[in-house]
């Protein structure tokens, strides 16, 4: 079984696979709770539910927790303690856009000379199984960045539901090893499987292409467009809360805080947002981004031009969470339509 080969697993085979995985590894899957789907560690296969548009929150927190202690210092003994390695995990049924977000985060957080060891240990111990979309959500635009709707770029195995079961495409060595462990449940994919797969991706991409067309290279020159009237107008609405950054699968900016807790000096690292007026404000009060418009422009410029320049990958996967959840309707698609 080479990488990229397509296998087929029946519906019952998949249930068996899930049972096996839950008993041997920590499995995280979408679970429904009061009308919404969110990722949760599941105890048995029945809890996972796979017919959903997307989870409300991305799986980012399993790789970059919202708060993690990165350093402890015990003054009396001078002992310094650094957290250990994480446990073997399977992340099931991630949408292709969220999986692509992981490969973007790899470009950023694993880039030498200083890869982030906390992210690396979680990423190396997690096998990601993505599940292709059946129907694009209202605010989805993953076609713009080719991060879905059928195949992402950060997953180890791409699952696609077709009649009678799932197609499984091996995308990485880690995925191949996982599937190899349950070889008996899989069989070679046959031509009508592949036909249905091709038909699904044509239908989905066609449906989405009508919304916003695939992005061109001009976006990287967004830097010069910052004086545009659009940004002055749209920035007035922004409330400068942290919602868009906290629900974004790619936002990686973090803040650190040091404090004393029961005679132990602790340094924690956790999610931050560039919308906050304190993000670039220095202790002297000097701030390279003094106005709300500057910060508003940075958010779009960072994702669509600055991350590409520094880490050669777009900082957005078109999942639509920020578009749907923003209380005042700030919408990145308007920037894409205007300068995409």
């Amino acid at each position, binding site marked *: 079984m080479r990488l990229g080969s397509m296998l087929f697993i029946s519906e019952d085979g998949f249930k068996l696979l899930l049972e096996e995985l839950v008993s041997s590894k920590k499995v995280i899957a979408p679970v429904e709770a*009061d*009308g*919404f*789907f969110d990722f949760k560690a599941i105890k048995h296969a029945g809890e996972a539910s796979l017919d*959903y*548009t*997307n*989870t*409300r*929150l991305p799986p980012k927190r399993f790789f970059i927790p*919202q*708060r993690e202690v990165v350093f402890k210092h015990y003054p009396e003994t001078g002992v310094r303690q650094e957290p250990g390695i994480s446990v073997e995990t399977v992340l099931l049924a991630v949408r292709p856009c969220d999986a692509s977000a992981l490969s973007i985060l790899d470009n950023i957080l694993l880039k030498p000379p200083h890869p982030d060891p906390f992210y690396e240990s979680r990423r190396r111990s997690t096998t990601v199984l993505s599940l292709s979309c059946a129907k694009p*959500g*209202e*605010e989805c635009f993953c076609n713009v960045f080719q991060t879905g709707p059928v195949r992402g770029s950060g997953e180890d195995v791409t699952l696609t539901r077709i009649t009678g079961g799932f197609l499984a495409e091996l995308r990485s060595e880690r995925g191949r090893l996982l599937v190899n462990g349950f070889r008996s449940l899989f069989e070679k994919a046959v031509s009508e499987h592949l036909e249905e797969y091709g038909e699904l991706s044509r239908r989905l991409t066609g449906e989405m292409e009508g919304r916003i067309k695939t992005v061109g290279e001009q976006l990287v020159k967004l830097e010069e467009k910052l004086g545009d009237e659009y940004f002055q*107008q749209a920035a*007035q*609405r922004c*409330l*400068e*809360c*942290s*919602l868009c950054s*906290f*629900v974004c699968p790619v936002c990686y900016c973090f*803040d650190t*805080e040091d*404090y004393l807790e029961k005679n132990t000096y602790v340094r*924690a*690292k*956790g*999610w931050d947002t560039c919308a906050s007026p304190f993000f670039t404000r220095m202790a002297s009060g000097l701030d390279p981004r003094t106005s709300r418009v500057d910060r508003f422009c940075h958010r779009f410029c960072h994702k669509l031009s600055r991350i590409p320049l520094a880490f050669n990958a777009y900082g957005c996967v078109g999942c*639509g*969470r920020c578009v*749907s*959840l923003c*209380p*005042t*309707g700030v*919408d990145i698609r308007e920037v894409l339509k205007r300068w995409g």
Partner: protein
Amino acid sequence: MSRAEDELRSIARSLLENRVVELVLGYERYGRSVRPCFVSKPEEAGRLVWSPECWFNLAKYLRSLRGRRVGVVAKGCDGRSIVELVNENQVDRGSIIVIAVECTGVNRPVKYGSTGAASIPAEYCGRCVSRVSPVADYLVKADVQGPPEESPGATVHASDWLSLFAKCLKCSACVKACPLCYCTECSIEGFKPDLVHRLRDSKELFTFHLTRALHMAGRCVECGACESACPVEIPLTRLYHELNEWFRENYSYVPGSRIGEAPPALVFKEDG
């Protein structure tokens, strides 16, 4: 296009043409929903819309627009938060033209990834104190009369609140959407010495939400902007309603009812 929308647009157009105001705060169509908009030219007044999707409280922007003559579209609760802001000396009534719209209840947006409709009637509108703003320079009557559709909304038992708080991301959308949450150094934002760390710590969400509730008690007009802005849909308005009940019982005071009335949460009176 409803009669109310038409009337609203003509009021805004005349206010801008006669330079009575520099800016009109209103709502504009946006995809399936509606969002706040800032209209500064008369010919742009056509962007203004009115529908039950207009849940956001535009009074939030008034403090940052202080010193400028501004027109603002206001529901009953928005108007009461303007009264509260005036009573707390945050904005001056003279520079605000209130375009009061008779409200028949708003729809709360149901968020990303939900299996239901795009929005459902807001449960907090069932407890509305006044459909029309207590302060108004212009009044736009509602198209359809009659009470808003009742939306029962899931009942929240006392024991649910801790698990509701635990869902919170500490993204501060509730704090930033609330017109009455305007402290420059907020005690729960994480300024040192910090009551609550700047980074979300699940233990501290208890202090975060209870402190915000205490600071809302006797001031909150229950406009529901916090609840509708919350990405994990914590029914905050219900929590603040309980504390407003305490103020109604002890001081028979309803926030935002009359300009000049000293809010008991802020002003101590011997006989109070």
